[in-house]
């Protein structure tokens, strides 16, 4: 951790110069060994993802060799095969469940966040903590009643069941995130707008929206990520018509013979939307994961 702490330098002028150079680099900077070490650790950590992508563009025979053959010829036929095997409806179901539930979450969370920050109701912190506490309840404990109710309502294997469940799963996160973004709107600006005679709509459109838009984008991406990746409700409440991408992955490996390259292609394909969303939102990711507690 302390590889580049500058030593009080010995007398020779070259040493002094080196020490000075080190000192300037040290203000927030790190030496080459630090960089090298970090990069090695990073690449080891990233290796499984790289291996997944690499295997996905190999032929089955090259994917299952021992020792591994990373330099085998590249082919994209595995991805084509996935579409032949009908991955499309699964992707559409995943997209529907994630996008519709994210929109629903925003529709509910934005007004709520407004009532918790800009024009706060009394005991608003209590309300915030109520939302948060629902996020801590393990979903598995709700599976049985939800299964019974959904079955009774004839909503098994229906993508809108997932929409409702994902909305409730993400709503607390969205309320907390949006509140923390709306709280950044300076109160003086709002008061000034009021003094200048701006109504509620005008205030929302010209003052709140521009400040809150990045927050809105980050919140949607986080909700999208969690819905897209959800497995437990999807596997227990859907069968054929409403099954989502993770269900495709699990059902996929029951087939015989070599399947590793195709499995890797499928895993890469279904992870791609979230990888893109996550990289796009990475500055705000920590805020969403910690429910707005850490910026």
């Amino acid at each position, binding site marked *: 951790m302390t590889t580049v702490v500058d030593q009080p330098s010995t007398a020779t002028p070259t040493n002094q110069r080196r020490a000075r150079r080190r000192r300037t680099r040290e203000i*927030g900077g790190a030496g080459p060994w630090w960089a090298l070490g970090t990069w090695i650790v990073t690449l080891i950590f990233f290796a499984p993802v790289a291996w997944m992508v690499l295997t996905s563009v190999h032929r089955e025979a090259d994917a299952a060799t021992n020792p*591994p053959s990373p330099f085998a010829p590249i082919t994209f036929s595995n991805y084509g095969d996935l579409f032949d095997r009908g991955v499309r409806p699964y992707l559409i179901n995943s997209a529907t469940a994630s996008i519709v539930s994210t929109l629903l979450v925003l529709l509910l969370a934005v*007004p709520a966040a407004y009532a918790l920050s800009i024009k706060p109701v009394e005991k608003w912190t209590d309300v915030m*903590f109520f939302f948060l506490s629902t996020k801590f309840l393990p979903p598995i404990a709700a599976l049985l009643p939800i299964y019974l*109710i959904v079955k009774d309502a004839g909503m098994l294997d229906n993508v809108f069941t997932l929409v409702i469940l994902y909305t409730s799963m993400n709503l607390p996160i969205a309320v907390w995130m949006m509140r923390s973004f709306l709280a950044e709107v300076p109160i003086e600006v709002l008061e000034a707008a009021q003094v200048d005679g701006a109504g509620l709509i005008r205030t929302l459109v010209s003052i709140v929206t521009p400040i809150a838009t990045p927050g809105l984008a980050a919140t949607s991406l986080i909700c999208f990520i969690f819905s897209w990746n959800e*497995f437990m409700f999807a596997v227990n409440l859907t069968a054929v018509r409403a099954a989502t991408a993770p269900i495709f992955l699990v059902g996929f490996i029951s087939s015989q013979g070599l399947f590793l390259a195709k499995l890797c292609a499928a895993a890469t394909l279904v992870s791609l939307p979230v*990888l893109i969303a996550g990289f796009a939102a990475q500055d705000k990711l920590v805020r969403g*994961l910690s429910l707005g*507690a850490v910026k």
Partner: protein
Amino acid sequence: MTALAPDAAVTAGTTQRRTARERWRLRGPLLPALIFTIVVTQIPFLVTIAVSTLNWNILQPSDKSFLGLGKYQSFAGLKNYGTVFTDSRLRTAVTNTVVLTASVVVVSLLIGLVLAILLDRKFPGRGLARTLLIAPFLVMPVASALLWKHALYNPDYGLFNGVLNWVWQLFGAAEGPTVDYVSKTPMPAVVAALVWQWTPFMMLILLAGLQSQPGDVLEAAKIDRASGLQTFRFITLPHLRQYIELSTLLGSIYVVQTFDAIFTITQGGPGAATTNLPYEIYLTMFRKYEYGEAAAAGVVVVAGTIIVATFALRVISSLFREEISR
């Protein structure tokens, strides 16, 4: 769980003298979200508690209707809870859950801390390194479980044995060892896959903590000739404490719920060696069809989570107060 919230003294001043009508107008935008959350999250838990007091196995003949949702055999009182605490499968599941959660959280916290410290300094390509490091958290959990099981752990052609074999051959041996990780060491295999997945989560929260350190204090420490280790021990670590607490607690709450990895990598096996509570509840519900027992186990999980969550809420509320008093 609603009673865990801190008091709202902060806003008391601004909201005191309002008419009832005005108050409802303020509450208006909040109500849809609040009502939705109460209906979708609280009602199922009340139903779970109700079912946990019933003898209800759908494979056995039954005549009593439960709210029109199904037919159960008889009222059981607290019998199902007795089963939960005495049944050896469920007890194993409790132990496994604790072992799994504790090892995943501790190991990923430690690795996450090292990574956060490494990334806290500027170096060429820092942004890219951070992006690559959060990738494991973004890969779909089911995909990552399958990746570990088939592409990494597979004894014949998995990457781990493949690399071992390659290294062995490099040193002239005919063939490397063939280790069957998932059958020989099922729990560490699941833990390793989950640690890989959760380390970025820990790293991101800890990195945010490191970067929120006030620069002038670090500067002062440097002027006072504090060594790097001293600075870390006496300035960084105390500052980081609440971030460590937060990531530990949130991590535990999420990792306790692990279902995908168990379902995919080991199916709870061999035997019940890696069956955790969520997976056991799933088996009780959809393999043994013991609804009453499954519900009782669910209530026990909720109770356990509430204990952890109480501490988590305390940490979050202290961070939250700091933020709103700023």
